[in-house]
């Protein structure tokens, strides 16, 4: 997209281009939902098979860190939504500030995640063959940690993608590529970030708060 208002040659007007980009993004979000869905199915199958082991194993997770992480993600979701609102009103500087806040919050999330992982690696609560911890009652507790590391690992990977997308959009915004007429990339990145938050909203109770 050379200049910010240029409409790509095969679209008839800017409106059609914006709606197409949004529909394309929503369809892509479906694939993300089903990618995570696969591991949720594994979670459901093994929780039905080993319910008490899941209950005992979930105690090994630190609920306070999980809650803080959820709050961090929700606030980052809020800031990216406000960022989009700012650019819709054409205020580029405020939008950049909000995007920056989102990136910082995302990094905070990853740092907290790093502490949780380091703690588990130290204790030996790892998936599959690497599981050497023996404080959890129940059969095959390593299955819980396989699913835990799969879900949170893929989610963290998506957070990294989110951070790079947000940084790319922030840089372009600072260069003045976006305005009230054309802010599609910001909106697209916002949708992606909200989905990452959406998945964590389901992931948090499933892993940290097993009744």
């Amino acid at each position, binding site marked *: 997209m050379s200049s910010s208002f240029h409409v790509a040659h095969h679209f008839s007007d800017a409106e059609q281009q*914006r709606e197409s980009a949004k529909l394309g993004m929503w369809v892509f979000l479906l694939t993300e939902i089903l990618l995570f869905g696969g591991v949720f199915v594994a979670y459901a199958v093994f929780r039905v098979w080993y319910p008490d082991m899941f209950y005992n194993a979930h105690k090994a997770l630190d609920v306070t860190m999980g809650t803080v992480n959820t709050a961090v993600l929700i606030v980052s979701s809020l800031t990216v939504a406000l960022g989009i609102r700012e650019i819709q009103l054409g205020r580029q500087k405020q939008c950049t500030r909000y995007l920056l806040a989102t990136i910082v919050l995302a990094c905070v999330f990853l740092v907290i995640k790093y502490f949780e992982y380091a703690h588990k690696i130290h204790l030996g609560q790892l998936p599959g063959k690497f599981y050497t911890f023996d404080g959890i009652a129940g059969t095959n507790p390593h299955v819980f940690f396989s699913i835990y590391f799969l879900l949170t690992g893929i989610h963290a990977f998506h957070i990294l993608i989110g951070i790079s997308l947000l940084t790319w959009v922030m840089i372009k915004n600072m260069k003045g590529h976006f305005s009230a007429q054309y802010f599609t990339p910001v909106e697209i990145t916002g949708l992606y970030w909200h989905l990452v938050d959406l998945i964590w909203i389901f992931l948090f109770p499933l892993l940290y708060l097993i009744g």
Partner: protein
Amino acid sequence: MSENQHTTHITPLWIYFAVGGALLVLTAVTVGVSFIDFTSIFGVSSMNFAVAMIIATIKATLVALFFMHLYSDSKFYSLTLLSGIACLMIFIVITLLDTNFRGKIYEIEGQPIEPAAKIYQSENVSDQ
């Protein structure tokens, strides 16, 4: 053009903060609720799981409707999101139809031969 919106709808500021606040409150609620054991109170099995899921769904719909602008966009986007979730539900429910009902005709068919993983039968793990 087909199904295109004419103006870009700008959601008022207070809605964003209201939704943000509601999400934080709901997070606190869901953590608080998790300490209460509903199953013993109401006797309904996996009640805690149901409560946690209801709260998570409310939070998710809030994010989807206001942060992702589904409320002010064409209904087709909501349809795509719902079709994705429905497809995932089909996958989960029908797979559980299998894994959950395995022992129904022969109880022997349902039980694994070695309930604990071989990883824990230490005596012959070393020389396998």
